[in-house]
């Protein structure tokens, strides 16, 4: 049977449970938020890196095709 009447110890039981719930929720929220932030940053940097890596290849292709072009 669910018993939520903590009289006369409500002033001790509820704060103990409340603080525990709050701290656990903060731990979970922090872990998830920080994880998402770094994942987003990694994705951004990787796509940026890919663009920079591609640029010389395009330039080289352009140069090759320029050389191969008949006058």
């Amino acid at each position, binding site marked *: *049977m*669910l*018993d*939520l*009447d*903590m*009289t*006369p*110890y*409500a002033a*001790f*039981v509820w*704060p*103990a*449970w409340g*603080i*525990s719930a709050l*701290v*656990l929720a*903060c*731990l*979970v929220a*922090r*872990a*998830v938020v*920080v*994880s998402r932030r*770094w*994942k987003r*940053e*990694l994705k951004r*940097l*990787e796509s*940026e*890196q890919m663009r*920079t890596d591609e640029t010389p290849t395009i330039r080289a292709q352009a140069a090759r095709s320029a050389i191969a072009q008949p006058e």
Partner: protein
Amino acid sequence: MFGLANPERFMRFTGPLTPWLWGAAAVLLAAGTWLSFTAPGDYQQGDTVRIMFVHVPAASLGTLVYAALGISSFFALVFRHPLADAAARAAALPGAAFTALALITGSLWGQPMWGTWWVWDARLTSVLVLFLFYLGYMALRSAIDDETRAARAAAVLGLVGLINLPIVKFSVDWWNTLHQPASLLRAGGSSLAPVFLWPLLTMMAAYAALFLAVWLTSIRTEIVRRRVMSLRARAALEA
């Protein structure tokens, strides 16, 4: 097991495991809370016995997490393994949170039962010292700019703090204290009545699952963070 020391393999293995741990923690927390508030009040302690269901798991995890931090620090220091260092770093904040919860909920339990919020006895003082070790570990890591030096200095502190763990565990046997002796892990089995034992074990499992989920997520985040740092360094070199 040692294969997981490879960050790539670690990421592959823990990726599908972490959502299951989050789920297990949520289910166990819900079940543990239900069992905690359907258990009868204790004939001596009344409803304050329900504080035990959040106090004991937090205190156990506070100690166990420090053991994990200390062992990871050992591997980080001896083998200079980055994953061990990431594991130690990721354990510090949850460990400090669990220890703080043990101190706060213990205080809230102590006032109605002992008539005092705090007493400088061996168990309470050694747990406070454990909390200070956690704070010291985190402060030391963030005080040194060079990450390698910070990791090494923090690992030494993490190892030194291991000395405190047996003092926390056996303080109630070695000295006269207000705190009750061990009632779960003791010779002859648990002295708790099953009506209190089951909610307590469920809450302990819930806290453990929650810690594992937070820990693995944070280690994975640390691996991602290091990858970001190396990409930034590479971009700065190329610029």
